[in-house]
């Protein structure tokens, strides 16, 4: 409120001749001039493809050099909604999102608490937590692919040498559901760091006198975790939830490198399925329709996200 008042009548403005009393045309023109390069490099690249994909999604396009691309209306979309392969990818993506985000938040809260705790060599612990986040996704994927390898993977070696397993088994090659869970495990390993850092930011915003007051009132550490930390972290958790959901809906690289979508298409996500239909099968029209369905989901989630941010007072 006070901020608003200041903006209406800032007392020092009268003394500074370079600044007009209210936003004039000059200021707007200068803003346009400053924003134009950014708009050029972003929308110059993005706008045409967005429109072109929409157009292709109502055509029957088979291959990039297809000459006859008849208008087929919404039939690509109708086909998608009746396509068992698509629904299977939707189910697998949903399972992937829910499971990986659940574990990332549970582990992420724990690690955020540790990052915030009075550890000796705190900087070292923080550095270690940063590493999986900074590690390139493809390197992480290639690493886990070999760790999970059925013939000479490190996981098989570890489990048999410790005596938990009698013989090597195939983690990625036989059971589609097991393979999906292994990809999720790799994703959780990589992205828990990111979630922990996002939650740490929320944790640091909790005023310490709240804990002080709780202690005086006789609450133990567990009690104050559940009655102060968790409720105060809810806004950050919502942000993580939406942000990670957007990420997992778009997920492609980790699936590509660890399983290539297999076995029996059991680890295909919607983005991966779209890629296969559009590029391997060369059905560009159908692929465009699929990608628009993905886009619709992402846009809805983005709007939820931006609204959450606005509630938290971000400039929007």
């Amino acid at each position, binding site marked *: 409120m006070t901020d608003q008042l200041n903006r209406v009548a800032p007392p020092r403005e009268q003394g*500074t001749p*370079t*600044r007009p009393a209210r*936003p004039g045309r000059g*200021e*707007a023109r200068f*803003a*346009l001039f*400053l924003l134009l*390069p*950014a708009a050029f*490099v972003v929308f*110059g690249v993005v706008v045409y*493809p*967005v429109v072109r*994909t929409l157009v*292709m999604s109502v055509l029957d396009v088979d291959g*990039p050099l297809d000459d006859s691309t008849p208008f087929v209306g919404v039939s690509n979309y109708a086909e998608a909604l009746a396509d068992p392969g698509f629904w299977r990818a939707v189910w697998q993506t949903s399972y992937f999102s829910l499971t990986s985000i659940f574990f990332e938040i549970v582990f992420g809260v724990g*690690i955020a608490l*540790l990052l915030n705790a*009075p*550890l000796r060599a705190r*900087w070292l612990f923080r550095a*270690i*937590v*940063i*590493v999986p*986040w*900074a*590690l*390139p*996704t*493809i*390197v992480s994927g*290639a*690493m886990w692919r*070999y*760790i999970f390898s059925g013939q*000479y993977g*490190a996981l098989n*070696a570890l489990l048999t040498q410790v005596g938990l397993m009698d013989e090597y088994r195939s983690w990625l090659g036989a059971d589609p559901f097991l393979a999906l869970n292994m990809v999720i495990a790799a994703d959780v*390993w990589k992205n828990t760091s990111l979630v922990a*850092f996002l939650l740490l*930011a929320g944790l640091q915003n909790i005023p310490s006198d709240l804990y002080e007051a709780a202690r005086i009132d006789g609450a133990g550490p567990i009690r104050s975790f559940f009655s102060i930390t968790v409720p105060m972290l809810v806004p950050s958790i919502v*942000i993580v939830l939406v*942000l990670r959901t*957007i990420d997992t809906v*778009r997920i*492609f*690289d980790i699936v*590509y490198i660890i399983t290539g979508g297999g076995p029996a298409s059991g680890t295909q996500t919607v983005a991966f399925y779209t*890629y296969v239909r559009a590029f391997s099968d060369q059905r560009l029209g159908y692929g*465009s329709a699929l*990608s*628009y369905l993905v*886009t619709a989901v*992402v846009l809805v989630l*983005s709007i939820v996200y*931006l609204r959450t941010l606005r509630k938290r007072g971000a400039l*929007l």
Partner: protein
Amino acid sequence: MRYKIFIHAAAAFVSVVFLAPLAWLVLASVSEPRDLLARPLHWIPEHPTWSRYDAIANSGGSDVAGMFRQSMGNSVVVALGTVAVSMVVGVLGGYALARLRFRFRRSTMVAFLIAYMLPPIALLIPLYLVLTQLQLLDSKLGLIVVYTSFTTPFVLWIMTNQFLALPVELEEAARVDGCSRLGALVRVVLPVARPGLFATMMFTFLMSWDEFLYALIFTATPDAKTVPVAIAEFTGRYSADFGLVAAGGVLATLPPVLLALAFQRYVVDGLAAASVKG
């Protein structure tokens, strides 16, 4: 006291979980193929070999190792180009969004953020066709153009919040002294915002270094292939020698991890600014 022991034990456990797979990656990169294929697995190589690193550093150029070295160079060029372009246009735009008042300011920011969140898979096919027409397919420049389109909204967003956090008086004083608005931005505001600038550059570098889907579709020859594409190819083609993939992986990991560690103070704040505040 029990609490002290508990948190240190927990931190040690987390550290092991995070570092063990990476330690194995490093070990595998210096293990002989027969150690890697052995059952039971030889965790610690008896005779560590540097042959793969040696090959990547010194090979002639046309074999796998040479191709990998070239892809490292491509990734560096693409990442630096992307950082340079998106930082310049993003800082200018961010300044406008933070300091100037004009209609549609909020809508402008939202439009940029939506462009940022569009799934690459939806842009892939037309971009491929456009890049072909412009003869930018399979070129580093083409990748820079595409990458800049998604790093710029990110830079805009972070820099807007950075500028908003700085006191207006700072530049007003400079302008009273006769600086133009741009002069005040360059001479007064940017030096103060330096930590944020470095952090944003680091994030942008990491985003570009990590990108895979566009690079996979838009590059075909060693002239333009980036590190993630090279590693994905290794993984498919040389599945018998994990050591080679591991050596490539270790090298590909060094630039982003070293950068992140060098700027680790800013990682938490930067991520918070990038997502929690927006």
